[in-house]
């Protein structure tokens, strides 16, 4: 796997504000990377650095073989970008906008126009962008980012303003691109959506990278308990099942449900106990830590060590 984006010890200051500090990572071909962090954590700054819109205070960046800080832009023909709150020239129609961007990338215009149907802009494509709703602007923004066959896609909050149906289409499109070797970096607050799709997660906090890895790796690092929910018949209020080892953190959710926080290494043991003969367990749900919980964990951890 070769890298398409290299960030090495990058720091960016805006006056006294340290937007990004000593951050390094590499993104490889075909990776679908989720960049998450609170507002102002440095997500947008990182993308702008990769595009050469701003120059790093220290460190070096390489995108598709270019050094964007030096104004090199040859590789940008194979780069798609969707800014947060995309704005497009209001006087032109969707089709005219798309054709303009296709020409700038030296790509086939009819092919680029076909993308407008992919994102479901269809009939509205002939109307002026000035008349578009937020969701329609976002669709057009996506369509322009997909022009050509991008090797790197930088998507800043791509799914805000999209309806659930288009969200699905959107993830289908980028998953297909990633399967074909495109590096996709997307920042989002919709963590549950990313959980199933991202092959890798980078968590930023106050300009510092606090975690980087696949969800499985992050779960291993975080050592957050897996929640086991049991539906148990015939328990009197306040009573806990007798087979439950003493000291296992658990709580009654309602008359029938008991939730146990199982440390990773005790998960199997507890499940085994719960499903062995003689217990009155009727149903079992195993809930591994979600990306939301992992995110909260890493932020807390970062704040404590800071």
């Amino acid at each position, binding site marked *: 796997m070769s890298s398409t984006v290299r960030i090495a010890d990058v720091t960016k200051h805006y006056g006294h504000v340290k937007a990004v500090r000593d951050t390094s990572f590499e993104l490889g071909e075909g990776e679908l990377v989720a960049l998450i962090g609170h507002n102002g954590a440095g997500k947008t700054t990182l993308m702008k650095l990769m595009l050469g*819109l701003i120059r790093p205070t220290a460190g070096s960046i390489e995108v598709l073989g270019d050094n964007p800080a030096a104004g090199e832009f040859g590789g940008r023909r194979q780069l798609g970008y969707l800014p947060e709150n995309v704005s497009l020239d209001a006087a032109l129609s969707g089709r005219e906008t798309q054709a303009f961007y296709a020409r700038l990338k030296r790509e086939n215009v009819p092919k680029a126009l076909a993308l407008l149907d992919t994102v479901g802009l269809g009939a509205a494509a002939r109307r002026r962008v000035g008349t578009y709703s937020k969701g329609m602007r976002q669709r057009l923004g996506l369509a322009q980012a997909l022009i050509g066959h991008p090797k790197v896609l930088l998507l800043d909050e791509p799914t805000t303003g999209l309806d659930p149906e288009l969200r699905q289409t959107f993830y289908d499109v980028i998953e297909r691109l990633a399967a074909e070797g495109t590096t996709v970096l997307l920042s989002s607050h919709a963590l549950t959506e990313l959980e199933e799709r991202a092959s890798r997660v980078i968590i930023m906090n106050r300009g510092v990278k606090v975690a980087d890895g696949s969800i499985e790796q992050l779960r291993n690092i975080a050592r957050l308990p897996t929640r086991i929910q049991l539906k148990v018949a015939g328990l009197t209020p306040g009573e806990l099942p007798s087979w439950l080892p003493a000291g296992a953190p658990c709580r009654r959710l309602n008359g029938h449900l008991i939730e146990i926080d199982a440390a990773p290494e005790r998960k199997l043991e507890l499940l085994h106990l719960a499903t062995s003969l003689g217990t009155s367990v009727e149903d079992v749900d195993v809930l591994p830590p979600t990306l939301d919980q992992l995110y909260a964990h890493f932020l807390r951890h970062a704040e404590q060590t800071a």
Partner: protein
Amino acid sequence: MNPLIIARKEIHQAVRNRWVLASTLLLAGLALSLTFLGSAPTGTVGVRALDVVIVSLSSLTIFLIPLIALLISHDAIVGDMERGTMLLLLSYPVARWQVLLGKFIGHLAVLAFATCLGYGIAAAALVATGSPIGSDSLVAFAAMIGSSVLLGAVFVAIGYLVSALVRDRGTAAGVCIGLWLLLVLIYDMALLGILAVDQGRNISAAAVDAMLLLNPTDVYRLFNLTGFANVSSFAGMAGLAQTTLLSGQVLLIALLFWTVVPLGAAALAFSRREL
């Protein structure tokens, strides 16, 4: 050809936004009224009707063309940044100087179209009403249109420089209005005042020439009012035409200089900006 792709889009937008229509109508309307109202004092014997029109139209151009040019250009960079469209454009495989050059070509094309059509209509109207027009007058008229476009180019470039330097659109507009007042009105008044006080004792003709070259609107004025003998006699500039050392060529080069330097400075300032 990235600049041409961008120029094409700028022209497209200007047509959509009615900029082309508005500026053409404005220039045509004023040119036509000057042509017909302006010839009233000279009466119908005006064998040199077109020369009179050149004098009055070029005086009008000095006020109007810089204003239109600054209106179009002052928000070209800072406005696109504020609206956020520049962010996306610069993520494409284009250099910043190409963006600037593309906008310049586009805006200048709009201005050139409006000037040629607007002023051309006035000349055509004179011909249609049967005024005799000499070939030397036609040459002077064509030179007036050409230099008007060049004056427009100067102020488009100055507008870009302001746009590339300031933080927000409001400031760009304010600075441009200030520059317009300075170059179109205040500079000449101050120069005139100094010359009147000095009475020709200390300031040589060469020094006056130098001071005129420092203001593009004066360069334009000199070019049109002294460059052609048939016109300068009407303009009351025959005296100045004889003393000035500045030939038409020098004046044209000065206007080109006034375009290229601000444009280059704008490109430099823009390339250093962070979005």
